[in-house]
């Protein structure tokens, strides 16, 4: 029993990280119909940039994290929107999706060529060790990751639902044409969404890299699981991405522990197929009407 609880907590920790990436997926999709297939690489790269800041420029870790995070948000948030999304979206969703796949390859190969092909240790912002809760030994790191991710998601949810800018972001996602007529700065709202997506990726990167090391190929699994999480939870709801991320994390953790670590990737994919067949709008998503 204690072992099961420990696996579930470990799954919730990785699931919370998938949720951060999945929320970025859904936000960007809702405001600009962009499916960012480089989302996994978005989580991989900030850790590499931070380590590069430490090893190449001799920066202290906190300064490298701050600088690396800001550079990443500017380049892969605003820069991505201007250089990739704006020119490509005019030609439809599919060319843009392919462009993001190309971006993923460039980010991955770039990290390998310009930094390292080896996995690098990334310092954890949280203390190592375990705490005993009701007879179950739980990793402090896992608990801290869950707490930080939930605080970040809670703040984002508050921002989106309670502030004026957040409501404008919702309006932009739901009906950009009318939002424009009402005087809402739609272009600025879309840009803000891309910046938030990049910031969530930086946070996810800092949380996940101490667990799985910083490596150029990390994005493959994280991107896949975040995509599955967004679909399982519901692509049109932030709470869907959160729920989907946690479910995928726990399923992945239990599959690795009790089925086979060789087939752990297959279990979330099977879950994805099942959800698409039974509830295509996702477990927490809302059915969408389209006028044709």
């Amino acid at each position, binding site marked *: 029993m204690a072992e099961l609880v420990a696996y579930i907590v470990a799954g919730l920790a990785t699931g919370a990280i998938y949720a951060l990436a999945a929320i970025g997926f859904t936000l960007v999709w809702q405001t600009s119909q962009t499916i960012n297939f480089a989302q996994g690489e978005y989580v991989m790269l900030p850790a590499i940039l931070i380590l590069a800041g430490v090893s190449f420029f001799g920066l202290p870790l906190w300064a490298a994290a701050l600088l690396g995070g800001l550079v990443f948000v500017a380049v892969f948030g605003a820069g991505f929107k201007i250089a990739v999304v704006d020119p490509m979206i005019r030609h439809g969703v599919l060319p843009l999706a392919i462009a993001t796949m190309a971006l993923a390859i460039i980010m991955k190969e770039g990290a390998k060529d310009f930094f390292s092909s080896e996995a690098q240790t990334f310092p954890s912002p949280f203390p190592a060790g375990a705490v005993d809760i009701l007879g179950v030994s739980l990793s402090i790191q896992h608990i801290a990751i869950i707490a930080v991710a939930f605080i970040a998601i809670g703040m984002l949810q508050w921002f989106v639902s309670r502030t*004026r800018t957040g*409501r*404008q972001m*919702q309006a932009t996602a739901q009906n950009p044409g009318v939002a424009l*007529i*009402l*005087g*809402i700065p739609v272009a600025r709202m879309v840009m803000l969404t891309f910046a938030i997506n990049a910031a969530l990726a930086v946070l996810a990167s800092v949380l996940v890299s101490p667990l799985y090391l910083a490596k150029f190929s990390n994005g493959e699994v994280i991107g896949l699981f975040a995509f599955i999480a967004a679909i399982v939870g519901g692509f049109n709801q932030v709470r869907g991405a959160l729920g989907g991320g946690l479910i995928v994390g726990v399923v992945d953790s239990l599959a690795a522990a009790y089925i086979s670590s060789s087939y752990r990737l297959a279990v979330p994919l099977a879950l994805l197929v099942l959800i698409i067949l039974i509830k295509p709008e996702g477990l927490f998503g*809302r059915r969408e009407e389209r006028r044709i």
Partner: protein
Amino acid sequence: MKPVLQVTGLRKSFGGVVAVDGVSFEVHEGEILGIIGPNGCGKSTLFNCILGQLVPSAGDIRLDGVDVTGSTPEAMNRRGVSRTFQLLQVFPELSVRENLILAGQEHRGTMLARLFGPGDAGLTAEADRMIGFFRLVHLADARAGSLSYGQQKLLDAAMAFMAGPRLVLLDEPAGGVNLTMLADLRERLRAMNAERGATFVVIEHNMDFVMSLCSRVIVMVEGKVLMTGTPAQVRSDPAVLEAYLGN
């Protein structure tokens, strides 16, 4: 009465097709002006040009005497022009109250308040007054997407008036609305004009609705103004009857 809107020689063409051809008219303070005409005569294109969704090919548009030809929809909104659409255009996932607050908030506060200010922008009381005015009190917290078609039309109209604009353009407000809701909508629009002095232009196919609501009616045919007159004059004009019914 001084004109709120002056449209002079407005023309809009798409390639070889002239959708609006030299249209001129004025809308006066506190007036309800109707625009009627067969499908495809250029009524909605005219609205799109006035609101800045389309750039006119020629002519000019003045709001309170200021040339606003070619302004963006965002700029026109800030100058106090709002509109509704033929097809419903509410924010389905937001509540009725949130829709109304959103419709009014861009006109309020400083840049800082716009970015980080409270979600209601100090507009909850005004939104609730508008909800009461359009008799949507029991639906104030309901998701807009869950309202009936007629109720959403009422909400759509309420949103257009929320910011207290100088001019509202209503594009087929009665389209698809049942008779009971239609009477309600007409009464609310009349009250909005009488009690708040709202100025608006209505495009509509429902003749009874237009004739009973508007003080003046413009008839458009093939992108041009065929005639302008009172509802009684329009009803009895042989050229209008011919345009609608043929020889």
